[in-house]
């Protein structure tokens, strides 16, 4: 359909008849090419033996091609950087070295937190757990692995203790209220411009 349409249009424009499909504005692109073509044809007609013009065109085309090639980023050519075998080995050695330097330290921290919390049975798979969890209990299963409470032997004894002293509760409530008020009053006071123009020479 598109082809038929354009052919028809061409015919119309060539014949110069004015109908409802005739463009009111002249297409500048086709106009230009037409002029160009006529010009070069004239030129070749005038000097049929002069070949340098053609090589000029060729070089101009080459230049355009080169310019385009430098401006275009070829995504397909940007392949992911493949690690060579020796790079693997180099990195492995580097990591092993770093881990060896840090290993003793990590082990020490791990043991200390494990003893303090009293949760055993955590294997070497949890080597990094104490540093990431902030030295808390390291039980890998269940939801109690992070808990403010410590495991105690006789729960009924602790639970049967007297209720907290009302005065203590009042002090805690008061302190909490003050802290909440202080936090709600906290605000950032702006003194200088947040956006500063750099002195670009």
């Amino acid at each position, binding site marked *: 359909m598109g082809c038929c349409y354009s052919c028809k249009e061409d015919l119309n424009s060539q014949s110069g008849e004015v109908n409802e499909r005739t463009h009111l504005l002249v297409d500048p692109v086709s106009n230009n090419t037409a002029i160009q073509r006529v010009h070069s044809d004239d030129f070749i007609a005038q000097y049929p033996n002069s070949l340098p013009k053609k090589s000029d065109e060729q070089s101009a085309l080459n230049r355009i091609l080169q310019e385009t090639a430098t401006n275009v980023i070829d995504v397909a050519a940007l392949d992911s950087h493949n690690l060579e075998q020796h790079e693997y080995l180099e990195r492995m050695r580097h990591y092993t070295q770093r881990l060896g330097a840090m290993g003793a330290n990590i082990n020490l921290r791990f043991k200390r937190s494990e003893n303090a919390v009293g949760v055993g049975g955590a294997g070497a798979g949890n080597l990094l757990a104490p540093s990431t969890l902030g030295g808390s209990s390291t039980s890998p299963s269940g939801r109690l692995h992070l808990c403010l409470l410590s495991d105690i032997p006789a729960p009924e004894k602790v*639970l049967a203790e007297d209720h907290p002293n009302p005065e203590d509760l009042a002090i805690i409530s008061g302190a909490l209220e003050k802290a909440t008020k202080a936090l709600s009053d906290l605000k950032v006071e702006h003194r200088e411009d947040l956006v500063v123009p750099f002195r670009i020479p």
Partner: protein
Amino acid sequence: MLSLERIPDQVGYLVLNDDGAVVASGGELENDEHMANIITGLVTITDKIDTVAFPPEESFKKISVNFESYSYVVCLSNKKIHVVKRRIMQEDTNENQEAS
């Protein structure tokens, strides 16, 4: 769980495993899944413990949630959460939470 029932002023108790499921219950808290979820959420509310403020060797033994006429006391033993609801006779305590 007779030992928990013998606690003075207790009106209900719950024992939860480390997944928050009810292992044993009695009194007002009998099969109280709703309360079990709340308590488990309270105990595991934090995902990071500041070791400077709460060093591992000085962790809490119990959490008390105090209301005017009753309080919930929570502690951890043998990887199980023990909750006891106890009546408070005094009238001058406000709603707050204390950990000791």
